[in-house]
Structure formats: C-alpha cells, structure tokens
C-alpha cells in the first residue's frame, strides 16, 4: 500500500513538473520556431557604406518618449507635440541652418520706418493639404485664435502686443504694434498657421482637428494610434517643395533602454541618446557602429548655478565671482556629460550672431576665488576649515530638482566649494514643490537649473528688474539699471546688426556681474541608421534636423514595410 502510494506521488510529481515546464517555456519555444527570418540577421549582411544618389521613397521610423496631447502646438505646448506638428504646419518665418530668420510661408517682409508695423508678403498659390488655398485670411484667423481669451494657450501674451492685425489682400498680412517689438519676428516664426476653413466653426480647445489636422508643410498625418505611433505621409501640396522620404513614423516608447534595444534590432532608425549610450556603449559595440551613425549638435539649453541676490552674501559681486572662479566647468562637462558639452559664457548659442565671441567663461582659479573672498571679508578666522565673516561660517544650500545631471553637477560644485572653504549642502526636490515652496517665495540660497539658449536674443523676462514678482522668471532678483536699459533697447530695435551690438554688451555685463554661473551646455545626441542619407555632418548651429526634407533612403536600403516589427 505504502509502496503504491509513493509511486503515485512520483507520477503526479513528474506530470506536474512537466506541466510547469511546459507552461513556463512553451510561449518562448513556439515563437522561437515560428519566426525564422530574423530582421537583424538579414540586415547585418547589408553593406551600408555604398553611396547612392538622392531618391524618393522609404519610411523613417523614430522613437519618442512622450505622446503629443494634440497637434495644435499653441494649445498642446509639449515638445512631443511641437516635434510632430512642426512637420505638418508652417509658420510665416523660420530659422535657417545658421539660425537666421528667413521666410517660410512669406517671400519677404517689411518693417515700417517707425518699426511698429510689419508687413508680410505671402508666397503666391499656397495650398493646404486638402487643396484649399492658404491666404492671409488664415494668418489673421490664427492670430485671432491665439489672442482669444477663450483659447487655452499659455503663449498668447506676445501676440496680444499686436494692436492691429489686417489682411488687406490675399497675399498680404500686416501687424501693427503699439511700440516697436523686436522679438515679434521670432514669435511669428513660432506660430503655426491654422486653416480657417476647417476651424472657423470649431472650439479650438476641444476640436477633433487637433487629432486629425490639415496643414501645409511637408507631411500630413495619416494615422495616429494612441499610445503606439503617429504616421505621417508626404503632403503632395506642400508649400516648401517635396520631401524625399515618403513616410515618417514616430513610435511612442517611453523607456530609453527599450528604445535602444529597438534601435539595436533595427526596428527603429533614429533615437535621441544619452551621454552614456553615446560615449560608453557605442564605442564598445562595433556591431552597432557598422549600421548606425552618431551625430552631435549643440543642444538648446544650458545649466547654471543661480544666486538668490536678495540674500547675503550673494548681493556682493566679489562673492559671486569667487564662486564662479572656484567651479571647474570642464570637470562638470567631463563628469556629468562625459565630455559631450561645451562651456558657455552667455545665454546664447555659441556660433550664432547673438553670442559675443569675445566672452570667455571664468577659468577655474581657486586662488583668485580665495583672494576675492578675502576682499569680501571671508577668511578662516577660527581655523575650522570653513571661511567665516563676523563669526558666521560661510555655508549655504544648493537647491535643485530631481534631475540626475543637475544632482551630479551639484555634487561636483559642492566639492570644489569645499576646497576653498565654503560648506554647501545639496537639497533635491520634486519639481512642483521645488517651484511652489522655494522658487516662487524666493526661499533659496543657490539653485542649479537650466534655461534655454533662446533663438531670439530677447531675455527681458529673465533678467529685467521688473520681472521679479512671484511666478515671474527673474526669481534670482537680478537688478542692474544698465542691463534693464539694454534689454529695453533690444526690444525696440528690429535691425539685426544694431540689435546684435546691444546683446553683446548685455552679455558682457551679465558675465562680469555673475548673477548666475554658466556651467555647461550639453550636446543633443542622435543615433541614426546609416540607411538614412543626406544628413549634414558636422551639424550646423540649427542642428542636423534643419534639412530633414533632403534626407533620403536609397531604395536598396528601404525596409520591407510588411515585415517591420
């Protein structure tokens, strides 16, 4: 009896353990057998170094981490939306590859003598993707929408400065400002023109048009699968000529590591890389380098250390300069960005006209820092290794938000400050409380944050002394009458050359005054499959994306559309 029982146990055990094994591994094995044509194995055999003349066709697949909320950029606002909408809609003006303004929908534009009126002359015979004519009426309509009180856009204020907007004929659009407003041209380069004939009876905040747009640029939306992908296809009526690549497909893959795996398996053609992927993983993987080319371009933002100028001792320019000398910027670029960045000396992109070529960042010079601090009254009187003045040690808090690169930057700064006898503590906060509890009420000593390297030089809202109210952007409370004057003058001057002089002067004062320490500007890093050709390398100031319409995929390299994963 006992013997039989034991045997049965054994049998059940065996059966069950087999069951377990099958349940666990069947899915893997079935799929392992069914898909014998591995895409990457095939592609590894293709030689991607041959040259081919430009040709039409093909699909470019890239990956984004976020999904657009809609494709009306003035309402959506996030970068994913602008990236897609930028392929669908035109603006009146655009930035060329050297980041100079040039016409997009307009041929030319005139500025009146008093610099208050700008007249845009639209190109003739412009059309929407649905074959309707695109006229100045559409431009006027777009302006009315962006300034409408009911429109849920955060970007209306620049356009509300327009006193009068008119469309005297189908190809002319004229705006008159109460006072000359130099950033106006930049604002018109950022406003996507919307079709009046489709939107005039719609509530722009809720319209289905945002998910099914009709534009005038190179591409039109063909399919949008929520949470999965957006597929754009060539617009036959494009106002700027025809792009070479037929389809742009943007897959939504929130995780960078998953994007990287998709890129390695040749399921996507392009993705943005982080410095580790660019500088550590790619050099170690010759198999990837065979098929994938890497590009770097100067990014659109810089990291800075900002002082609360309302707090002592940061109101003393010597203290600010001393801290500037004490921080080793190259060390931050090497340590945090793995060398993939540049030091900056002004809030403008190096290489563009607004960036003053004479300005150099403060060199790393701890002795000079100590001397300046001594002049400001800071010495180590009690011998505890920390500088003090009037019996109080020089210690403060570096505040930043949850951002790995900024946290690491803070740590490197902390160490360098420690070297010259300043004790800094680091505090990292979630964005909303960072903003609400510390930035708005100005309850901070020093912050590590980033600003964009704006294309228009006007930075009135960041540096002008009138912009210090809670919620405004001069939260470091910078106030310098000379800078105020220059910022005001820069807004009134529409002549680019005269304007350039104003902002070169402004940058010079800003660097001397050191209300912030310019730390680094990281590169934008992109990996693109070698099947995509026509990409400018090295990248011009506008980045590799300035001529996407000229990119092409030789038909020998095009994917087989059905077998794509």
């Amino acid at each position, binding site marked *: 009896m006992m013997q039989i029982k034991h045997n049965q146990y054994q049998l059940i055990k065996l059966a069950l353990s087999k069951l*377990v094994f099958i349940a666990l591994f069947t899915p893997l094995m079935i799929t392992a057998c069914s898909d014998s044509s591995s895409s990457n194995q095939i592609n590894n055999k293709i030689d991607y170094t041959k040259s081919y003349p430009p040709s039409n066709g093909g699909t470019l697949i890239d990956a984004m981490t976020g*999904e657009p909320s809609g494709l009306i950029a003035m309402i*959506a606002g996030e970068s994913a939306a602008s990236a897609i909408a930028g392929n669908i809609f035109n603006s009146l003006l655009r930035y060329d590859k050297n980041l100079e303004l040039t016409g997009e929908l307009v041929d030319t534009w005139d500025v009146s003598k008093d610099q208050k009126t700008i007249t845009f002359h639209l190109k003739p015979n412009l059309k929407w993707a649905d074959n309707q004519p695109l006229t100045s009426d559409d431009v006027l309509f777009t302006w009315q929408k962006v300034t409408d009180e009911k429109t849920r856009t955060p970007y209306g204020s620049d356009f509300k400065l327009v006193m009068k907007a008119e469309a005297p004929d189908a190809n002319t659009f004229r705006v008159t400002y109460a006072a000359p407003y130099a950033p106006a041209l930049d604002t018109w380069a950022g406003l996507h023109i919307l079709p009046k004939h489709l939107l005039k009876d719609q509530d722009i905040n809720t319209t289905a048009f945002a998910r099914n747009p009709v534009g005038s640029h190179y591409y039109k939306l063909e399919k949008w699968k*929520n949470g*999965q992908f957006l597929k754009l296809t060539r617009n036959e009526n494009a106002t700027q000529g025809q792009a070479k690549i037929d389809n742009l497909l943007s897959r939504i893959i929130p*995780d960078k590591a998953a994007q990287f795996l998709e890129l390695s398996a040749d399921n996507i053609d392009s993705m943005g890389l982080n410095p580790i992927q660019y500088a550590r993983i790619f050099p170690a993987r010759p198999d990837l380098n065979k098929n994938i080319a890497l590009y770097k371009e100067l990014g659109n933002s810089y990291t800075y250390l900002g002082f609360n100028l309302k707090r002592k001792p940061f109101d003393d320019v010597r203290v600010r300069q001393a801290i500037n000398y004490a921080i080793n910027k190259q060390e931050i670029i090497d340590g945090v960005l793995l060398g993939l960045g540049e030091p900056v000396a002004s809030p403008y992109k190096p290489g563009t006209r607004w960036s003053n070529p004479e300005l150099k960042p403060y060199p790393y010079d701890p002795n000079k820092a100590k001397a300046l601090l001594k002049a400001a009254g800071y010495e180590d009187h009690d011998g505890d290794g920390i500088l003090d003045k009037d019996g109080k040690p020089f210690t403060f808090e570096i505040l930043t938000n949850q951002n790995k690169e900024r946290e690491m930057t803070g740590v490197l700064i902390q160490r360098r400050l420690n070297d010259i006898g300043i004790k800094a503590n680091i505090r990292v906060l*979630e964005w909303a409380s960072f903003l609400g509890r510390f930035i708005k009420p100005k309850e901070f000593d020093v912050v590590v944050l980033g600003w964009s390297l704006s294309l228009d030089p006007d930075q009135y809202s960041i540096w002008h002394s009138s912009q210090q109210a809670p*919620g405004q952007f001069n939260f470091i409370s910078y106030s310098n009458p000379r800078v105020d004057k220059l910022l005001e003058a820069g807004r009134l001057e529409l002549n680019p050359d005269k304007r350039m002089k104003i902002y070169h002067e402004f940058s010079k004062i800003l660097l001397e005054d050191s209300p912030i320490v310019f730390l680094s500007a990281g590169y934008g890093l992109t990996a693109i499959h070698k099947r995509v050709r026509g990409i400018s390398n090295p990248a011009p100031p506008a980045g590799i994306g300035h001529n996407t319409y000229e990119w092409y995929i030789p038909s020998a390299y095009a994917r087989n559309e059905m077998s*794509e994963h």
Partner: protein
Amino acid sequence: MLKYLVKRIFWMVPLLIGISLISFFIMHLAPGDITTSEASFNPKASEESRQKLRELYSLDKPVIVQYGLWVKRMATLDFGTSFASHQRPVFWQTKDKDGNVTLGMIQEALPITLLINVLSLALIISVALPLGVVSALNQNQLTDRSITLFVFIGFAIPGFWLALMLMYWTGVQHAWLPISGLQSIGHENMNWLAQTTDTLKHLVLPVFISGITGLAGISLFVRNGMLEVLHQDYITTARSKGLSENRVIYGHALRNALLPLITIFGLSIPGLIGGSVIAESIFAIPGMGKLFYDAVLMRDFPVIMGILTIGAVLTLIGNLLADVAYAWADPRVRRGVVQ
C-alpha cells in the same frame, strides 16, 4: 442572503463618497497643478496666461468648491475631460457635432491592461497551483525546497531588469519576439490570424514578466493551504475508507485548500485594472499604469479622479464578490452570513 446583498450594496454609496473625498483632498495636497509642470516653466509662457488657464479649469476656486463641481458632474456619470490631453474625455468616447468620435482615455487603456492582467493571472494560476500542490506533497524535500527557491527568485528579481534581459535575448539577439509595443507597424494590413499572432507575440514578455512576480504569493498560499488540509481529520477519514490517493488529494484536499484563494482573487479584481508603470513603460504599452502615472506627474486631476473612482468601485465590487463567492463555496460561512 438577498437582504444581506442589498445592505452591502447600499453601504457602498457612503463608502464611495468617503473614498472620493479623501482622494480628492489628498490629490490637492500635493503641490502644483497642471500649470506648474516643468515644461511650462518657460519664459514664453507668462504668469498671466497661466493664471488664465487656472481660472478656465476652476483651479483658482477653493478645493471644496472644486469637489462640489466634480460631484455634480459625477452625479450624471460624467468623468469630465483631461486637462493635459487636449480635452480628451477621461472615461468614455464622445461625439462632436460633426460626428467626430473622440475615444475616452480609460476606454482605450483599460482593455489593454485588463487583457495583460487576465492573461498573467491565468498564467499565475496554471503555474502556481501545480507548484503549490507539488510543494505540499513533498514538504521539506528537495522538490519543495527548489520550488520555493524558484518562486522567491521570481518574486525578488527586479522586473525591469529581467524584462530588459529578456527583450535583449528574445528581441535583439534572436528576433524571436518583438521588443516593445502592442502591435507591429504593418498590423492593419494583416489578416485576422496574423493580427492575433502578432498581438500575442507582443504580449508574451509583458505577461510573463507580470506573471513571474505574482507566482510566489499564490503558490505559497496553495502549498500552505494544502498542508493544513492534509492534516485534517476528514483526510484521514477519506484515506481510511479506502479512497484512491488521487481522489483524496484532488477530490477532497485541494478543493478545501483552494477556499482562501477566492478571497485573494476577489481582492485582485481592482488590481486587474491597475497596470504596472514600470512594465508598461519598458514595453511601451499604453495601459492604465502609464496613464495614471502620467496623470499624476501632470497633475491632470480629472484623469486621476476618474481612475481612482473606477478603482474604488471595482475594489468594493471585488470585496462583495469575494464574500458572496466564499459564502457560496463554504457552507460554514454561508450559515454565519444568514444568522
């Protein structure tokens, strides 16, 4: 029994109101709102415009007033529209005057998450049940020990790491399975068979990853329940009256050992609609976890409240179902209920 049911359902109403009130206030305790996201910290967006947005969304009103507005909408089962996603309806699709249908956010995310969770629950049960039984029958022997070790490794292993490793192995090295996403690019051009296979292939890894972490709990439950039952007098009785060992184990022991599982499954009903943020992000699956996570980051209050409310309702229903099912399965409980 009927009286008991009615009473239970009746009591769900004040419970729901309480839950929604607490969730609403906790949500508003977190600093910031839709206008204070990091992306909106942009010099081009003025403070006045942000204030205007706050007014348009009624965010400038006291929290209690906002709660009142929300309850008023909920009374007509209107979950509202999302702040962050261009006014998409939170729950179910709407049709505008031109006949354009906009799908609801939960409507789209829920079936995906539900499918993955049901599949992984099925996987868990089909694996955990035999594992638990085998463990119990071989208590403290090598088989038992190795099964316990295996399920605990599965429980302890970081899901995102295992996911990436499997994605690399099955997707990059061998191209057996798609790496991420829910469908292939050419999905709509396939016939239905290819479409089903395509979707299933995309689901293998996500289901496996969410299943493996849940294995430990259920298999140990089965094991311990089984052990307890095997020592009961009625098992000795069954054996002594000469029933075959199969009947003793599967006919008497297992059935009784499974009773506590009813409660566990009842309680896992709300879990079925909550996706895993990490798995959904890694596999690029637009499910409920990602939806909720993004909504919290963006302070998209209507979406947060929508998901919390549906979660609360399902939790209460799950509780009720578990209790009823338990009563149905276990006469002892049933009698207790009637009294």
